[in-house]
């Protein structure tokens, strides 16, 4: 099999192949539409963010980051990511493992449910958690009140909503990778006397590390950027439950445009770094696949 694969990879189509399908005007039109959309809808907003942030000079830009509320928002966002990403890492690995390596009843249901956070509006997701965990009218209102536990309008609620929203990212990245690799290497480890943990850490994990890393990067980006669900469960209390995206909105509503856009650059840089990492990972795993 690998012998065949390497042979097909070394096949380079002759130059005439590349243009044989469409005439030049068709090609240029398609390229123009594609590039035009990208500039209009992706590149321009990005430039606008940085333009607005630096419009009144670097001094004012930097001043944003000495605002104690902004620092609190950044801290809260980092805390939420630090809670939700590791939990989703464990869940993603377990779910991808179960889906790709075993057959069990309810497997297709699990695969479907996994996509639920993509399908449900984040605001609805937030409302559902309010409904469940609210201390005044939630399902668990009594025990929560008795134990003096706050979930909604507090860090746990924000973390729960974020975990829900970012649930599919890691599993979705891992499933195709694990599916492509099959079970043979794990079975080989088994016949060689390795136990489950050894097999996992020495065989399975190294094989999926790039997919996993990419999943984590995406999951993290979304965890830091989530607005809708978090807005509903957090109550958006400045300095307490206001995450970066929420605080950006608050600033904007208060006509503090420069501060809002300055903080937005942090999230934008995160997005750009994510894209760079994505490209780096794809390059790395393509290199690994070539081997």
């Amino acid at each position, binding site marked *: 099999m*690998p012998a065949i694969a390497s042979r097909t990879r070394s096949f380079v189509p002759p130059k005439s192949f590349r243009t044989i399908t469409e005439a030049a005007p068709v090609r240029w039109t398609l390229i123009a539409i594609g590039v035009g959309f990208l500039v209009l809808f992706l590149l321009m907003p990005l430039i606008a963010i940085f333009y607005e942030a630096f419009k009144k000079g670097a001094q004012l830009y930097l001043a944003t980051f000495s605002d104690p509320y902004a620092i609190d928002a950044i801290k809260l966002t980092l805390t939420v990511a630090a809670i939700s990403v590791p939990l989703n890492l464990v869940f993603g690995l377990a779910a991808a493992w179960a889906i790709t390596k075993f057959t069990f009843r309810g497997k297709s249901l699990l695969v479907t449910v996994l996509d639920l956070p993509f399908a449900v509006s984040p605001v609805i997701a937030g409302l559902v958690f309010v409904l469940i965990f609210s201390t005044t009218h939630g399902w668990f209102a009594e025990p929560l009140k008795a134990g003096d536990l706050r979930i909604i309008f507090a860090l746990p609620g924000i973390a729960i909503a974020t975990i829900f929203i970012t649930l599919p990212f890691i599993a979705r990245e891992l499933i195709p990778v694990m599916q492509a690799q099959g079970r*043979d*290497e794990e079975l080989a480890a*088994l016949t*060689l*006397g390795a136990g489950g943990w050894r097999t996992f850490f*020495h065989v399975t994990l190294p094989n999926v590390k790039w997919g996993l890393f990419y999943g984590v990067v995406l999951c993290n980006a979304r965890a830091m950027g989530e607005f809708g669900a978090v807005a509903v469960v957090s109550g958006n209390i400045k300095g307490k439950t206001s995450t970066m995206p929420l605080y950006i909105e608050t600033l904007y509503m208060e006509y503090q445009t420069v501060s809002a856009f300055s903080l937005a650059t942090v999230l934008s840089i995160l997005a750009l770094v994510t894209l760079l990492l994505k490209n780096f990972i794809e390059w790395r795993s393509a290199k*690994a696949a070539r081997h």
Partner: protein
Amino acid sequence: MSIEAKNIHKTFGDYNALDDVSLEVPDGKLVSLLGPSGSGKTTLLRILAGLEYPDPEKNSRVLFHGEDVTDVAPGKRGVGFVFQHYALFRHMTVEKNISFGLRALPRDKRPSADEVRRRVNRLLELVQLDGLNRRLPSELSGGQRQRVALARALAVQPRVLLLDEPFGALDAKVRKDLRRWLRTFQEEIKITTIFVTHDQEEALELADEVVVMNNARIEQVGTPQQVYDRPSSPFVIEFLGNVNRFRAGLGTPSDDSKGVLYVRPHDVEIEAAGASEHEYAMQARVLHVFSAGNYGRVALERLGTHEQFEAEVSRERLRQLHITSGDVVTVVFRHVRLFDHGRYTEGEVRHGRLVPYDIA
């Protein structure tokens, strides 16, 4: 070490993969499980390895050297298993791949790092890959990967070697070389070995004993010569090599036999029309002559019944015959086999009749 499988049953849902299969493999033998895909051969191999469990309610047993290992985990059975697509650990070097089993041993049984290195080098020598310690699997050819897989399986000093279609993913030339190599190798280290294949040529060339499987059952067990020369069923004769198949008898007036008649292409002799009229089996029309290859092949169509069949003749004979498509020739069957409702007769054809051999 001897291997014994007793009354193995295995179903996957509604699908019957193995139906009461029993098999004994004596110590030190090289045995091939031969059959078409879906015959259950790989499932049987995996059950022997412990990678698959037989149906629990049927009292299927696997014994190694008389000891029941049915419920023993694969890692504790002392089997070396080689997968069809090698299943090498892709991110580990050749060295790490081979030493994996040694490094996975419990601490008190694990050899020292020096000892591990020595053993790896010895194994690499054994599989003729010395010096490739630091390569990644991706930097090796298919044949080399297969040998690394073999070395990895042997590193834990298994009592039994199980190979699943070991040459299936290799191209024809490498396959042939590796096959010969494995034969000598197995004779050297004398380890009981079972390999699965769907390639009859491979099974006949390599194995001490061939187990022919079909439809979740074993059809026949025997030496390569036994299964080729004394096939126990129409399936075996059809699966092992090319064979011409004729319904009913020979079609000549004096012939009254029914059933299915088999003639190997190399047992078909072609003569010019009318050459030996009193002993001929039948007349046939030449459809095609294939003269490229080690021997000539002639596609023929029997006059009257339009049954098509094939003859293998030496290239020299083909030149002498001087036949082309459309010619009518006389065909003599040197050796035929007749399966008639479970009764098996073997013999030659004389005067349009099947004359059985005197099988002592």
